[in-house]
């Protein structure tokens, strides 16, 4: 029942918001709905019963509307439901920029992502996968930057091609199930396919997931989209939506196609490691805060993907933890980027400087988040990255060594950003800057607390994914 509510609340409130004309009440309603979703996902963390939901959907096809909450999906639903209240809080004082429709689409997107994490029926999974994409398309195209239409379209076509190929893979697996076919994940798990078939399906499905994550060389939509999308949407895209790809690999790809996973793991890890280095190097050269965070995000996701395919317990555990932590950290970074752009009107490092004198609170909070982005000890990211590297190290020492270079590069670009924006002398643009308002402070402090708590005591997360 909990799982059903997690989808139902955002859908209903999202649809309701299309009929509300008053902006104030739209903001309050959306904040309320997202907090309610958060409350339910927190309650479901400790609950042992009432987690699954199943109903008839299309009997003739053997498709069911079945949702299930296990440890992994609990954690990701928590991430999804934390992110929205924080995002709404951080834009609470933006006047007249976003209409009620914006909040409605955001909630619908949340519902779609939630469904992807919960679905235990492949057709339903595909439905939600697309349902998450369509609101994103409208959000980015309406409220995005200057080149929003072309860039968002590229993003949409890219992911749509991927998901159609995934659909073919799903249909193929469905036709292999015994008796009257079914889409249920249990039946997919019990399939015994020849390695040839597995390889074909692996290519089809991994294509979709690789685009979503994104893995080098399928990443070219990502920096443009993150840059052009309105920042609140970018937060969801990079904080939560990319996790859909990683999640799908863990739940729908590796257990269903074990032989193919072994067969392709070298190639996938190689691509991930190349992507990490490549993205880190490009991130160093960026002059735009948003583009820099976008590339750094590619590097981090690359490490997560490599760790998953390393086929070790440590690697997988680290990847799972890091999925959650990366979401929290990157949302924090985007909030900072949004604040800077809104206050000062530019995102370029070369036009910024000395902001720490004017906005000390913001500076402190950003420094913590930046340390987390480089995975320094005591921040939550350290635990995840440590586990991932130990997993990768067991798999192949060379891959681990090369991947570790990107950690150093990560420190270079992240600290470079902190230094250029916050330290040095103030420039004309930052002369009149003021410190952040209460709502952004609250949102950032909340994120920083999560980062520090899980950095010192990560056991709750580890227990959650082990269950």
């Amino acid at each position, binding site marked *: 029942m909990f799982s059903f509510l997690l989808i139902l609340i955002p859908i209903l409130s999202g649809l309701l918001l299309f009929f509300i004309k008053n902006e104030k009440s739209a903001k309050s309603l959306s904040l309320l709905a997202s907090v309610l979703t958060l409350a339910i996902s927190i309650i479901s963390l400790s609950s042992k019963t009432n987690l699954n939901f199943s109903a008839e959907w299309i009997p003739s*096809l053997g498709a069911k509307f079945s949702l299930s909450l296990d440890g992994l999906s609990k954690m990701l639903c928590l991430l999804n439901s934390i992110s929205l209240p924080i995002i709404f809080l951080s834009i609470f004082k933006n006047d007249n920029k976003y209409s009620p429709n914006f909040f409605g689409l955001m909630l619908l997107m949340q519902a779609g992502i939630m469904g992807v994490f919960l679905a235990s029926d492949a057709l339903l999974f595909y439905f939600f996968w697309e349902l998450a994409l369509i609101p994103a398309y409208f959000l980015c195209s309406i409220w995005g930057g200057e080149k929003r239409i072309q860039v968002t379209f590229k993003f949409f076509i890219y992911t749509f091609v991927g998901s159609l190929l995934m659909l073919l893979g799903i249909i193929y697996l469905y036709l292999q199930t015994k008796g009257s076919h079914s889409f249920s994940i249990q039946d997919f798990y019990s399939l015994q396919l020849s390695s040839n078939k597995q390889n074909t399906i692996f290519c089809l499905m991994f294509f979709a997931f690789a685009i979503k994550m994104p893995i080098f060389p399928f990443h070219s939509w990502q920096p443009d989209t993150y840059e052009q999308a309105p920042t609140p949407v970018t937060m969801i895209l990079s904080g939560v939506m990319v996790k859909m790809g990683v999640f799908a690999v863990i739940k729908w790809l590796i257990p269903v196609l074990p032989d193919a996973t072994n067969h392709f793991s070298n190639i996938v890890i190689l691509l991930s490691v190349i992507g990490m280095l490549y993205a880190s190097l490009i991130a160093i050269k960026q002059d735009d805060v948003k583009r820099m965070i976008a590339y750094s995000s590619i590097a981090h996701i690359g490490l997560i993907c490599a760790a998953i395919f390393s086929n070790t317990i440590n690697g997988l555990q680290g990847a799972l933890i890091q999925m959650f932590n990366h979401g929290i950290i990157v949302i924090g970074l985007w909030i900072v980027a949004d604040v800077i752009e809104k206050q000062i009107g530019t995102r370029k490092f070369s036009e910024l400087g000395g902001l720490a004198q004017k906005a000390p609170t913001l500076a402190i909070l950003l420094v913590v988040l930046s340390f987390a982005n480089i995975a320094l000890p005591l921040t939550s990211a350290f635990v995840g990255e440590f586990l991932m590297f130990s997993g990768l190290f067991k798999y192949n020492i060379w891959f681990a060594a090369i991947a570790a270079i990107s950690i150093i590069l990560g420190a270079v670009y992240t600290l470079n950003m902190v230094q250029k924006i916050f330290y040095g002398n103030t420039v004309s643009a930052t002369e009149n800057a003021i410190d952040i308002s209460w709502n952004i402070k609250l949102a950032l402090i909340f994120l920083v607390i999560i980062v520090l708590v899980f950095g010192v005591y990560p056991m709750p997360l580890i227990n959650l994914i082990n269950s």
Partner: protein
Amino acid sequence: MNSIIVSALLGVVMMFSGIFTTNKTIIKNIALIGMLILLVSNIANTYGWCTVDVDVKGMLVFSKFGYLFNSIIFFTSLIYIFLSGNDFADVGNNVAEYFALIFFVLCGVAILSSYNTLLMLFLGVEIMTIPLYILAGTDKKNLKSNEAALKYFLMGAFSTGIMLMGIALIYGINGNFKIEFETTSTIQNFGILLPLGLLFIFVSMCFKVSAAPFHFWTPDVYDGSPSVFTSFMSTIVKAAGFIAFIKLFETHSIQLQTSWKLILPIIIIATLLVGNITAVFQQSVKRMLAYSSIAQAGFMLFALYSSNTLSREGILLYSAAYSFATIGIFAVLIKMKDYSFDGFNGLSKTQPVLAATATIFLFSLAGIPLTGGFFAKYFMLASALQEHKAFLMVIIAVLFAAISVYYYFRVIQAMYFKQGDAETTEITSGFKLGLIVLAALIILLGVMPSILLQWLYF
């Protein structure tokens, strides 16, 4: 049997109604009521309540599949008249005749969904297409409309000739018009005659459903005809053509095994290629829809290729989802003053209901989940994978589906993301309501396709 008789009678009724009144609203309402009667009589026939039985000596065979298809078609026509019936008056003064012709077309459709001999196939095709030649040319003062009618007539007559030739060859082998053959030994005796005869019929059916490379008439005819009638031609008539096509070649697919499986993939890929690629480059939405209807035909051909249970269910779903969406998008298009993509700029600001419903129609045409179009495409792909493991072909089809997103979404981009003030003719609240109901139906089909398909097995 009911539907054939009732539709023919209604055609006559509509013709004479023009004598008694010239009020266009009254005529439209008579047509609406007539369509409702037709739908009800067909449903009654399905359940065997009050049926008219005529001994046709096995020339027509009525099945649940045919009944359900008829119901879908009549229901679509009902929506079509409700949404676009008022626009008939803009085409010309002879509104009653237009409605009469539409009912005659439906009579042909009812024959095509139940024929059991080649003779009835020929009659059905002719009854269906001859009124269309007239409808295509109803905008008499418009050169393009004249061109469309002439082109359609010449091409149609030509393809009918080819079909007759094929039927003659098969009659020569068989000694009768039956579509099944008694023994296989007779076939071998006649060598090439049977494949040749079937090939002729196949080619002429490809003409009718505008499959490449026999599609050349389609864009000009669809573009030149008055938009109200293009909407009818590209949905109901095309779907009926497919049903006839599938019915005919289902029975022969075994005899044609090898050669068959070579021709059809080529035709399918060519149709998808031509339809999708040319649609990308169009500047007018109407012409884009004409090419996209070729592309959709490519997907429907999958049902012919796989002919199994999935594909039979799928073609019904495809007919419904595709017809609903196309009729809806044409109904919106007719209200626009400018048919180019730029003419849609900013429609979401001036007419939010039209823009929102048009988006759902376009989603359905593009096959986005949550709309009927998704399951339509799903059934086609799944049936092909189940029957032949035609992996490569299905992958190509899917890539073309992604291309189709490009041109359908251009309209959405224009409506929602571009600045402008799209001009429309006057829009009544009844029209908006009709669009909303149609959009709701499409979403219903996209969430629960079983509500349509369960009717096949009660």
